[in-house]
């Protein structure tokens, strides 16, 4: 990474870091509070103390101390930060460890990138947290990372500390490589059919049981004081074993109704539970089975027809699954869509007639429940993290805009601040570009003198 690039990147990040307060108090006053869990408070206030929501209520009942910062939110709406249960943002390099049918030992947390501008852009759309998933190239892909978009903070502060671990499975066209060719000269990799996909998963769990048995034998011997050689550690088998022990949430990408039911049956046979089905575009066809297995559905609401397995997708999917008792969330699977998940939530009012309350849950409380972080986030409740967004209009309206985004009581995005900084950033960029150009001219002159070939630099930058 060139020095100039690093410097400019740092400047962009520093531009966003807000002032840090010890035990700050912020009163968001006189707005429509959409608690999501306990209905709507017209003309209400939310009091933030430190990182938590301290009080919620009608405007004349919520009092703040004298040194509280008061934000007049008259006419505005406050919604909990939106949670995206299917993200691939903030990952350095590929999200797919393509090389084997089961790469469950790899971890997204090892390749997180806290300089991905998409995180900031999502804050600007009211999204504050996400489950960053491995891709869908393998039947069993890799371990996820559940983070908050703490733009400007060190990477270590991004993962939500007590978020349950999760792993990505994938069913259907992608893990059987229907739609992409192997690199030239390389043979196609198993599996090639949905039969093979099931087998990969089945075999992985059978192998895991063997692995667990070997360790049990070893541990029993040690206990008896016998001499024993420990089995060879296998990081993949340990992950599979943890799934069987119920320590890891399984989030499985799927499309077709038959593969949804396949995994439910397989899970019940192998002795684990599927936590959520992702995409699950045909979930509406087997919502009964999903409800019985107590598995959630997380889906992008109206994309369809891009693959054969997406052809029967209907935007009423969320509503139908919800009506059948399945906890359903809308997600993005896209840096772009993650900026307006509030609108995807609105679509299940139109398609299938969910109430506005139910619709708001699909982008806030329900993904929080699915990810096991609803003790912290997903609704405006006293004691939860102050992850809140101030909207200019009702967030289910297409005319609404997120203007201020809080995570744990700190402002991570504010439109007024963003606008105010633009001129300064433009000037800074121009200055840096000029400095780089001057540096290059200088080097060229020196190169002419020294006669040595230096590493190339592009002379033309900018627009």
């Amino acid at each position, binding site marked *: 990474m060139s020095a100039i690039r690093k410097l400019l990147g740092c400047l962009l990040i520093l531009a966003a870091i807000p002032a840090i307060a010890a035990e700050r108090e912020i009163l968001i006053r006189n707005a429509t509070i959409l608690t999501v869990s306990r209905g709507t408070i017209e003309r209400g206030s939310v009091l933030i103390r430190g990182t938590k929501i301290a009080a919620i209520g009608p405007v004349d009942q919520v009092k703040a101390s004298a040194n509280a910062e008061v934000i007049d939110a008259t006419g505005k709406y406050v919604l909990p930060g939106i949670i995206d249960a299917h993200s691939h943002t903030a990952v350095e390099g590929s999200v797919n460890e393509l090389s084997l049918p089961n790469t469950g030992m790899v971890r997204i947390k090892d390749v997180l990138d806290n300089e991905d501008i998409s995180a900031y852009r999502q804050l600007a759309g009211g999204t504050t947290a996400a489950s960053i998933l491995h891709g869908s190239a393998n039947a069993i892909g890799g371990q996820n990372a559940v983070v908050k978009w703490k733009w400007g903070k060190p990477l270590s502060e991004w993962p939500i500390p007590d978020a349950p671990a999760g792993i990505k499975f994938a069913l259907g066209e992608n893990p059987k490589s*229907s739609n992409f060719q192997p690199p030239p000269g390389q043979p196609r990799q198993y599996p090639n059919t949905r039969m093979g996909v099931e087998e990969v998963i089945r075999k992985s769990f059978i192998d895991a049981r063997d692995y667990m048995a070997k360790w049990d034998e070893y541990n029993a011997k040690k206990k008896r004081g016998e001499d024993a050689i420990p089995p060879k550690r296998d990081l993949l088998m340990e992950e599979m074993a943890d799934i069987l022990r119920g320590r890891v949430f399984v989030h499985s990408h799927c499309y077709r109704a038959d593969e949804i039911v396949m995994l439910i049956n397989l899970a019940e046979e192998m002795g684990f539970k599927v936590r959520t089905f992702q995409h699950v575009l045909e979930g509406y066809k087997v919502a009964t089975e999903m409800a019985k297995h107590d598995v959630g559905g997380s889906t992008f609401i109206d994309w369809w027809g891009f693959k054969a397995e997406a052809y029967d997708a209907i935007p009423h999917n969320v509503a139908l699954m919800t009506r059948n008792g399945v906890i359903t969330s809308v997600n993005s699977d896209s840096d772009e869509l993650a900026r307006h998940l509030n609108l995807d939530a609105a679509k299940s009012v139109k398609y299938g007639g969910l109430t506005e309350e139910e619709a708001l849950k699909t982008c806030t409380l329900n993904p929080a429940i699915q990810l096991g972080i609803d003790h912290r986030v997903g609704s405006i409740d006293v004691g939860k993290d102050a992850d809140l967004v101030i909207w200019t209009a009702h967030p*289910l309206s297409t005319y609404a*805009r997120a203007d201020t985004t809080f995570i744990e009581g700190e402002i991570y995005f504010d439109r007024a601040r963003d606008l105010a900084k633009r001129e300064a950033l433009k000037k800074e960029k121009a200055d840096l570009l000029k400095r780089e150009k001057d540096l290059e001219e200088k080097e060229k002159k020196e190169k002419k003198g020294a006669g040595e070939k230096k590493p190339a630099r592009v002379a033309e930058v900018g627009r």
Partner: protein
Amino acid sequence: MRARAIALLLVAAAAPLLAQSVIPNNPGVKATVAIRNATIHPVTSAPIANGTIVLADGKIAAIGTNVAIPANARVIDGTGLSVYPGLIDSGTTIGLTEIGSVAGTNDVNELGDLNPNARVEVALNPHSNVIPVTRINGITTVITRPGGGMIAGHDALIQLAGWTPREMVLKAPVALHINFPRVRAGSSFFEQPQDEEAEKERKKQYTRQLDKLRDTFRDAQAYAKALEAKGQRFDRDLILENLVDVVRGKVPVVIHADNAADIREAIKFAKEFSLKMILSGGDDVQEVIKDLKDNDIPVLLGPIWSLPPREDDPYDLLFTNANALHQAGIRFAIQTEEAHDARNLPYQAANCAAFGLPKEEALKAITIYPAQIFGVADRIGSLEAGKIANVIVTDGDPLEIRTNVKQVFIGGEEIAMDSNQTLLYKKFSARP
């Protein structure tokens, strides 16, 4: 080998089965209909409360508060409802694609750089399932455009109803589409090529493409002249022939370009050949306002739901473009550049309104403004007596997601408000 041949046959057989919509197509009956006591939004004039609109013979017969309802009219009670013109999407691939990953169903991109002889109107599938899905959300008319190569081909303005492509086409072509060569390799400011050699080669390739474009147009000008000359026969060249109306200024050119440098080069190219240019895409329009204004170039803006190209772009760059054009008095329309997801056109327009564009302008950008840009404002784009009866009845603002479109009329024919998706919904709602 045999198994593979069978597999290929099966795939080929599957595609048409998937593509045939079973939704009843337009009934062929241009009934006389009166929608009474509704809030009517003509778009080109102020909304009318408690208004009546009469459709007859496929046209809008009358609008107003005191309109005589013909005796044989079917009367629809519009109490609590609103009436708007059918929405227009200025850039789609509807009718040319069924399943993105199945090549047999995709007809958007012809091979090679020079395809002016590719014409959308001969490849449209009137029974695509995408059509009912789109029109039941109030989009009645779209531009379907080709996408392959540098000169991609000629588009068609189509109604989303009709038993054959000819019945759908309102105007074909509207324009020739050019995917303008791009001066920058990647879109990110931080993307620097690894070595000087690769960058040199890429620059050479860019220059070659521009030269090819200009050479082709010069040849087209020569061909046009040759056509006028008398006395000498020559073999026809369909590539050049399909550029003749363009170089004569009769058929506009929609040039797809996003980057400011590309837009400027495109304008230069259009002026060189006296082309009637329309810009499509336009991520960087705010940087080229003067160039667009000075040359009176209208813009087909969109998709709005797209990421700003550079890391250091303002986060709302694509959302504020529409208002910037509006403030500068530059003509524009909003497009989705989609097929399956074109139904979200009104919401993409509304997004622009969330970032400054007046709401009425957002509505105009998907009704009267595209009609004007495409030269069909005498026929569609607003509710006015004499125009084609492309009419939608809603229970609110069609740019709001929570609004329901209750009934759609295309060419005065009442459209079945079902799609494969609503039928699947009904089917599985009934699962015990």
